[in-house]
C-alpha cells in the first residue's frame, strides 16, 4: 500500500486504479457466474469483502491485463476498460465498462484514503447490482478490452505489444446503458456502467 513519494498524482491514481480494476474485474466475473463460485475465495480489499480468483491462470490473466494498462493509464491514454461477456459467436451480450478520465493537469497530491473510499463504493455497489445485469447463457466467454484514445504503436514499447485487437463483434444497434456508479474527483474520474444490446438485438440472439 505504500506509495513512492515522488510519484505524480496521476501515477498514484493510476496505480491505485490498477489495483482496484483487478479487484473489480474479478468481482464482475464472479458476479456473472462464469466460473463456479468455488473458483473464488473471499478476501478483504479496502476493507470490503471481495472475491479473488483461486485459479492461478485466471488470476494471472486479470492481473497481467490491468498491470499492462498501467503505463497507458498514467499517460491518460485509456478511454475505457471493458469486461465483455460474449457468446460462442463472439457476439457480446453484456459489457461492464469502466470509463476513465485522468486529469493530466492535476497538480496536488492524491489523498489515498479518499480515493479508496470512493473506489470502495464501486465494489459495494457492484456486489448488489446483480439484478441490473442479464442472465448469461451457459457457455459464454469473456474478455477484458481496453479502449484507447489512440492506438499505441506496436513495437514502441513492450507494454504496447501486450495488447492485441479484439475479435469481438460490435453491436449494430444502439445500445442501452445502465449506470452503476460514478466517481468524479481529481485527478481520477471514473464511470462504471453496464452496456446491453438493444432489445431487438437481444431478442434475436
Amino acid at each position: 500500500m505504500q506509495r513512492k513519494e515522488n510519484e505524480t498524482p496521476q501515477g498514484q491514481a493510476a496505480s491505485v486504479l490498477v489495483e482496484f480494476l483487478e479487484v473489480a474485474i474479478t468481482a464482475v466475473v464472479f458476479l456473472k457466474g462464469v466460473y463456479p463460485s468455488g473458483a473464488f475465495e473471499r478476501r478483504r480489499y479496502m476493507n470490503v469483502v471481495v472475491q479473488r480468483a483461486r485459479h492461478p491462470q485466471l488470476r494471472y490473466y486479470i492481473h497481467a491485463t490491468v498491470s499492462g494498462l498501467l503505463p497507458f493509464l498514467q499517460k491518460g491514454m485509456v478511454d475505457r476498460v471493458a469486461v465483455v461477456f460474449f457468446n460462442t459467436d463472439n457476439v457480446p451480450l453484456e459489457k461492464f465498462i469502466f470509463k476513465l478520465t485522468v486529469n493530466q493537469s492535476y497538480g496536488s497530491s492524491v489523498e489515498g484514503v479518499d480515493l479508496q473510499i470512493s473506489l470502495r463504493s464501486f465494489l459495494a455497489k457492484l456486489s448488489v447490482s446483480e439484478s441490473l445485469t442479464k442472465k448469461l447463457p451457459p457457455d459464454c466467454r469473456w474478455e477484458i478490452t481496453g479502449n484507447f484514445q489512440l492506438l499505441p504503436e506496436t513495437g514502441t514499447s513492450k507494454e504496447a505489444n501486450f495488447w492485441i485487437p479484439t475479435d469481438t463483434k460490435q453491436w449494430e444497434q444502439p445500445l442501452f446503458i445502465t449506470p452503476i456508479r460514478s466517481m468524479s474527483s481529481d485527478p481520477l474520474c471514473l464511470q462504471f456502467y453496464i452496456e446491453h444490446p438493444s432489445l431487438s438485438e437481444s431478442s434475436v440472439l
Partner: protein
Amino acid sequence: MDSRLSNSSSSTHHSNSKKRKKNATANNTNQKTLGVAWGSKSLSASSCSSRKSPFSDFSSYMAHKNCKLQNQFDSEASASAARKPIFSGVSIFVDGFTVPSSQELRGYMLKYDGRFENYFSRHCVTHIICSNLPDSKVKNIRAFSAGLPVVKPTWILDSIAANRLLSWVPYQLEQVASNQPKLSAFFTLKSSKMSEDTFTNALCQVEPDVQDSFPRVGQLKERHPSEVGEMVEVCRQISNESNDISSKKTDVFMMEEPIGERVICDEEKLAEANSSETNNERNTEGELDPTYQEPSTSFSIPCSDNQNVHQFPSSEATGSSKQCHSTLTDPNFVENYFKNSRLHFIGTWRQRYRKRFPTLSTGLNNGISNSNKSDIKSVILHVDMDCFFVSVVIRNKPALFDKPVAVCHSNNSKGTSEISSANYPARSYGIRAGMFVRDAKALCPHLVTFPYNFEAYEEAVSCDEAFLDFTDAMVEDPELLASSIRKEIYETTRCTASAGIGGNMLMARIATRTAKPNGQCYITPERVDDHLNQLPVDALPGIGYVLQEKLKKQSVNTCGQLRMISKNSLQKEYGMKTGEMLWNYSRGIDYRSVGIIQECKSIGADVNWGVRFRDMKDCEHFLINLCKEVSLRLQCCGVQGRTFTLKIKKRRKDADEPAKFMGCGDCENLSHSVTIPLATENVEILQRIVKQLLGCFYIDVKEIRGIGLHVSRLENADTSKQEKYTLKSWLTSGSASVEKQKYHMGHNKHNSDCANCASSHGCIHSQGSSFQIDNKILNIHVSGDPISTPPPLCQLDVEVIRNLPSEVFSELNEIYGGKLIDFIAKGKGKCESSSSLGNSLEDDATCKEEDLPYSDPIPLNQIFSENKAMQHERVLGSGHGSCSQVTHNSNIERDDLLPSSLSQIDASVLQQIPEDLKAVILEHLPAHRAQDFCSTPAICPGRINQDSVGVDTSKNCPGTVNHALNDSLWAGNLPSWMDKFKDSSCLRKLGEIYHRSGFNSQLSSVLPQFLSEFHHLDLTQEIYDETVNIMCELLKQYVKVKIERDIEEIYICFRLLKRFAVKSQFFSRVYNDIFPFLQAAVDDNYGGSLFMP
C-alpha cells in the same frame, strides 16, 4: 500488494472464526464434534493445540482462543520494538469497517503498548473503535458497548501523531455520542484504567465535546433532567445581584436607562395614602419595553469550562425540572423557556402589575406634570427591598434570619447552580450573585440555599423597588417619611427595605446603595459631590461590564476620575447618548422624572439560548411557538403592531461552539422586517409573516443560534378593535342584504369609473387614489344609507353596466325596472366613440381587487360569497404581506397595492427590486389571485377573464427571466438558477431545499424532497408552460454539467423524475420534454442510450 494479501488472509481467519462462533451457538447441542471440526479446518497457528484437546464447550474454546490470541499479541508486541507506551492501559476492540483497517490499528496497538482485543469483552476492552454503526446498535448502544466509549479510529492516529494519549472524548462516534448514556459514568468507571493524566485531560475536553454535537446533548439531557436543568439555569442567569436588578439590566442594555422602578403593592397603597397627588411610584413605565428583557440577553457571562465539566459528575435526580432545554428536544421549548426565566419574570412584572391596578395606572400621567422643574428642589425617595428574593423566602423562617441564605435555581447539593440572590449575612462571606453554589459553599459551608418561588414573589410583592417623588408633597423631613414607609413595608411583608433619598432618581438610587442593608440614607444636594467622588463607576446605573472595562482602560475607576474627562471627549469615545449620560451621572445629574410612563415602543421575545435546529421543521415549529409567545405578550399589553422584525443570530462561520452551554456564542446578527398596513396581534398572521421573514434570510437553520421576534409600531388594540367592530357590523348588515351589496358594488364601480375617466387609464397611482374615494362611497352607502335609491340612469356608465357579471346585471336591471337593457342598447352607440372608457373599467376592476385585501378585505369576499369566511383570513394575510412588501421596496405609495397581474408592473422596476423582495412579490401574486379566483367564479363568472390575466403571473415572471437562462445556470458556488427560481412560486421551493442541503449536494439528493413537497403544490397550482420550460432548462444544464463525469447522478435524477412523472402532471411534462435531450446527450458521450426500466 503482498503485504495486504497476507493481512487480509489473517483477517479472513478472524471472520471465519466468527462465523464458526455463530454456528456454534446455533448448534450447541453438538458442540463437541463441532469443536473438532473447527480444529481440523482451522488454518491458524492455534489449530494444532485445539486439535489435541477438543473443548468441553464453546466458552472454554473461546477462553482458550482468546488466551492464545493474547499470547500471540504479546509475543508480537515484544518482538516489535516498543517506542513509547502511548496506549498503555488502553485495550481496543475494533468493530466493523474502519480507516485505517483493524489490522493497521492492531499494528499500532502492538507498537505503542496498547492491547487489541479480537473479541469483545466488557472486562478487557476499554475502548471500542469504529467509524460507523448500524442503527440497531446505535439504538441499543448499551447492549453493544456495555457502557464503554465508542471512539473513532482517528483517536488512535491522532494520539500517535501527538505522541501521547489524547482524550477520546472529542473522537467519540457522533452517532453514539447523541445516545451516550452518561458521561459521568464513563469517568468514574474508566478513571481507574486511564492514567490520571488522561482523566483530567478528558474532563477538560468534555465540555467542547459536549457542545460538539447537539443531538447528543439533547439526549443526555433527557436522561438527566436534573443536571441539565441546573446547567440550564446556570447558563440562563446573569451573574448579577438579583436585588439590584436595575444594575443587571443596565449591564445588558447599556444604552437604555435603568429600569429599576419596582413597586411593592403595599408600598403603593401606602404612598397613595400619604401623598395622593404625587401619584408617585408608577414611573414604572420606564424606558425599555419590558419584554425586551429576555433571559438570553446574558451575553456576557460565559461559564468557564471547568464549571461546565462539573455538571456531569453529579448524579442525583432531584426531579425538579423534568423538561429538557433545547429546541431540539423540547417541543414546548419557548413556553418553558420563559416560564423558567427569572429575568423574564422581572421583565414582565410591570404588565402583571398594571393589570392588577388598572385604574391607578391610567391616572398616572396626569399626576406627573413636569414635576421636575429645575427651580424646584426636588426630592426623590428610592425604596428598594433588601435582598428581595431571599427575604421573601426566609420571611416565614425566622430561624434563618441571621444565617447566610441564598436563592438559586436548583437546590442541588452538588453546587452546580448559580446564586441569584444572597442575604447580607451570606454576603459578608463574600458570596455574590452569579456565583456557583459550589463556590459559595466553599466560602460559607453552612449556607442555606432555596430555589426560586415565583408565586411567592408575585403574591408578596410585584417587584422590589420603587421611586417616589415627593417634591410637591411638602414633607418636612424626608427621612421621617422614608422610615415610616420602611416600617410599614416591614410590617406588611416581613421583608426589610432600604431607602435612599436624593435630588433625583440617580442620587436616590445611589443613596439606597449606601443605605443597604435595612437602612436609609439622604444625600442632600450639598453632599452629592463628596459622595460621588469616591463612587466606583460601575455603581452608576447604565454602566455595565463592557463600559466599565472601557473606562478602566482609560484608568477611570471612580466618578471623580470620570469627571475629569470633558463631555466632548466622552461623547466622542462612547457615543452621544452614553457620553452625555456618563458626564451627567458622574455629576449626579439626572433629568429623568419619576412616573413618566413611556409607551412601549416595541414588544417582542428573543430566545438566544438553547436554540438548535436540525431542519426546517424544527425551526418552523419553534417559530410558531415564538409567535404564540409574542402574540400573548401583545395581548397582555393590549396592543397590536404593524412592523414585525425577525432577528436571527447566525453562528459565525469560524465560530466554535460557544463556551456557554447551549449558548449562542459568536454570532452575526441579522434582521429583516416588514410592515403591514393593519395592526395585528393575531397568532396566525404573525406566523405567516414570520415564516416569510425567515425565508428572506436564506439561512441554514442549523446555523441559527438565536431568534427574536419584535413587533413595533404598536397601536392600541382597543381602538383597532373598535374599528373592527364597525367593520363587522357593517359586514353583518351587508350579508343581510346581499342584493343591496351587489347594487352598491355596481354603484361603486360606476363611481370609481367616473373617477378613472378623469385620469388616464392604466395608471396605478390614480387607480389607487380613486379607489380610496369609492371605498368611502361604499362605506357611506352601506353604513349610512342601506336603502339608498339607485342613481338615475343617466348617471350610469354604459360600459360599466355592460361589463357587469350577468347576475349582477340582472339584479341591477330589476332595480331599474328593466330600463337598464334599453339604456345599454342606447349606450352602445355612444360608447364606441369613447373606447378609453372600456379600458378604464377593466383597470378599475382589477384595481379594486388588488386594493380590497388591503383596505378592507372582508367585505369583498363577503359580497361574493358569505361562506368564504375562512378565506378572508387568508386574503387578509396575503394582503398584508404584499402590502408590506410594496411599502418596502417600490416607490408606489403605500396605499397602492400589487396589481393582480404582472403585466401591469413595469418590468424594469421589477428588475430593480432586490431579489428577495421580488420573490415575495411574485409569490404573492399568484396566491392573491388564487384567492380571488376561488371566491369569485360562483357568483360573477364575468370576472374570470380578469382573473385569468392574473393567472399569467407566474407565466410572465419566468418569461422575463428566461432570456438570461441560456448560459450556465449551474456555474458558481451558488448556482445562478437559484436566483431565477425565486421568481417562480413552486420552483422556488427547489431553490430553498437546495439551499438547505448545502450547495454542494447533488440534485439527486435534493430532488426527492422537492418532489414530495412539490406534490402538494402540484395539487393547487396550475402548470404553466414557462415553469415546465424553466425546469427543463435547469435539468438540461444539469445534464450538460454532469453527463461527462457523473452519469450515475444523471441516472438517479431521471429515475426519480420518471417515478414522479407517474404522479405529477408537471413532472410528466418535464420528463417528456427533457428525455430526448437526455438520450442524445448520453449518446454523444457514451454511444448509447440510458436504459430506463
